[in-house]
């Protein structure tokens, strides 16, 4: 039970951080578009989308992994039927 609680709290933690990053991106959407348009003149601005992509991939990736785990979805483990030594 405590394990579940910890899993959920970690899920919520990364979820909130991800949501905040997304909210910031879209509140600042106009500035971001302006920066993209100005990139041909100021090449270093290309670092902006790269930094955003890294940050959001990291937090959102952590969140989704925990989310499906918390939802109880996991890959099928496919143990083959054990073979006895005699069958070897």
């Amino acid at each position: 039970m405590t394990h579940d609680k910890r899993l959920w709290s970690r899920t919520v933690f990364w979820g909130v951080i991800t949501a905040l990053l997304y909210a910031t991106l879209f509140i600042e959407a106009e500035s971001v578009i302006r920066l993209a348009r100005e990139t041909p003149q100021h090449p270093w601005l290309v670092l902006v989308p790269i930094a955003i992509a890294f940050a959001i991939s990291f937090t959102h990736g952590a969140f989704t992994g925990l989310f499906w785990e918390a939802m109880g979805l996991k890959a099928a483990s496919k143990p083959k039927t054990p073979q006895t030594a005699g069958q070897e």
Partner: protein
Amino acid sequence: MAEVQFIELNAATVFLLVLIGFIGGMVSGFIGSGGAFVLTPAMMSLGAPAMVAVASNICHKFPKALVGAVKRHKYGQVDVKLGVILGMVAEAGMLAGKHVMTSIKQGFGDAGTDLYVSVVFIVVLAIVGGYVLRDYRRLKRLDHALPEAKPGLARWIQSVEIPGTMIHFKAIGARISLLFILPIGFATGMLAATIAVGGFIGVPAMIYLLGVPAIMASATELVIAFVMGLGGTIFYGLEGAVDIRLSMLILLGSLFGIQLGAIGTTYVKDYQVKLVMAVIMLTVLFSRFFYIPGYLSALGMIAPLDHESVGTLKTLGDSVLAVALILGAVTVLTSLTRGMAEHRKEEQRLELEASMARLAPIAATLEPSARLARLVVASDGSQYSSGALTTADDLARATGAEVLVLSVAVVNPEYATAVPELRATALANAETAASLGLAALSAVRRNRLIVEADDPYRGIVEAAEEARADLIVIGRRGKRGLARDLIGDATAKVIGHASCPVLVCPRGAHLAEGPILAATDGSRFGDAATWYAAKLAERLGRRLVVVSAVLPSQTEARRREAVATIERVETALRGGPVAVKGVVDTGRPEQVIVDQARHENAALIVIGTHGRTGLDRLLMGSVAERVIGFADRPVLAVR
């Protein structure tokens, strides 16, 4: 140059982008890398110009590729040299591909690039989709994937010696001329710049032309994808074509979808995945035909079409695309739910059978945590497992326990479905490792067990749980000086996550004749270890030595506490079947424990761990970690 047009975002387009990302991710996770063939056209259908769609797609992919590459590098599946060389050449290919796109855009505007991308899409999807369909029919006949011998073409390429161009690659285990690498990388990059899916060329070329094992090809492709994706984002970013809003909205859905799709594949057969892949590819291909007249008319290459006809054709194309997406989503979700239900039923049945079978022995020895009826020993076929196999065998012969030799086939569902040989190779390797391990045993009751998992530690923990193992026996990596490196990441995680005790054995270990040594700090973890050690000593007919350490810097009160702990243990076990000796010594705990074990020639050390705390680093407690890392004999971690 004309300014790049970004699309207006409203609630509906945001929702659609996230949904498309989700479905694209799900399809990508289900049929292997290459969801871009869904995502790029879908973004174009929402009104994004081809260049923005391709650029934004590349930008959402490269950080994901990095994470994947780092993960698989840990399993030794990545040939970094090959990946970086191919990635750099691919970068040049991308530059050329992007140059073609930019030239077309300058000459013919957005309609020109749209037409170009659509035509490349149709050609590539027709070839790849057709190939996949053929593969599906072959697999369905066989009903399983067979590992294939090294392709003839690869053997020939490896035999060609061109002086001054030869480079050795560990993934191939041979030298290959750079002249063969260059075109592969270039084509991969060119395709990626055009339709954002370079892996369609890269992975098959590495397997069939260079002779790279499939599992390494798909892992190395991640390095290429990262190098290329980062480069591509910079190139397109400099043109102002990366719409980070689109990238991140696609990512929002895609990360959810990709994991769901990957999980879905573990519940279906290979050929079912191939069928879905072929059907979606060919449907997407079909949808592109409806757009082409519009592009041709905008370019003046055919008699101009009126607005209404172009609109109707576009709607038709969009509908076909939507059908492809919905088809993919429904297939993945139904196979997932049906598979999970069947799996659950099967698990319940096995559980019932197992509990019936095991009722008798459990009733005979009702000692839940010190029972030793079944040991699971992990074997990866390497020298590191040898000590674990010998110790497990010794322990099984002394206690009459059954030994299961477990090998984990590390399979990443996302890639294994795209390249079926991956799974077959991983399974074949695991079978070899398990058989070698089994051959090394002499215990009376011994079986082998092969499981598939995306991570070795998860495979071991879950298989041990399913087999209801009483003890996991595992080897220890012996590399550099740090304690964590001595233990190995997988071993540390097994200790942290296993629900039964874990016996960690250094290379060449065996069960010596000496006493059982328990280390305690007086905590409940120490008590658990001592109790387990006492039961084990009784079972094996050995003496028990209980050790408690005091740091030189600690107070006299702490020392008295340690003495009291040892006295408490001695009192509790006095009069029992096991002879007990208590030791309190001053020094660093790990040093005291390891030295005392050597002094007594202990058969094994039993130590308590903290159990799971969420962070891998803290999974077992630092003293236990260092004892396991430094001891020259088996260490049993008890929780």
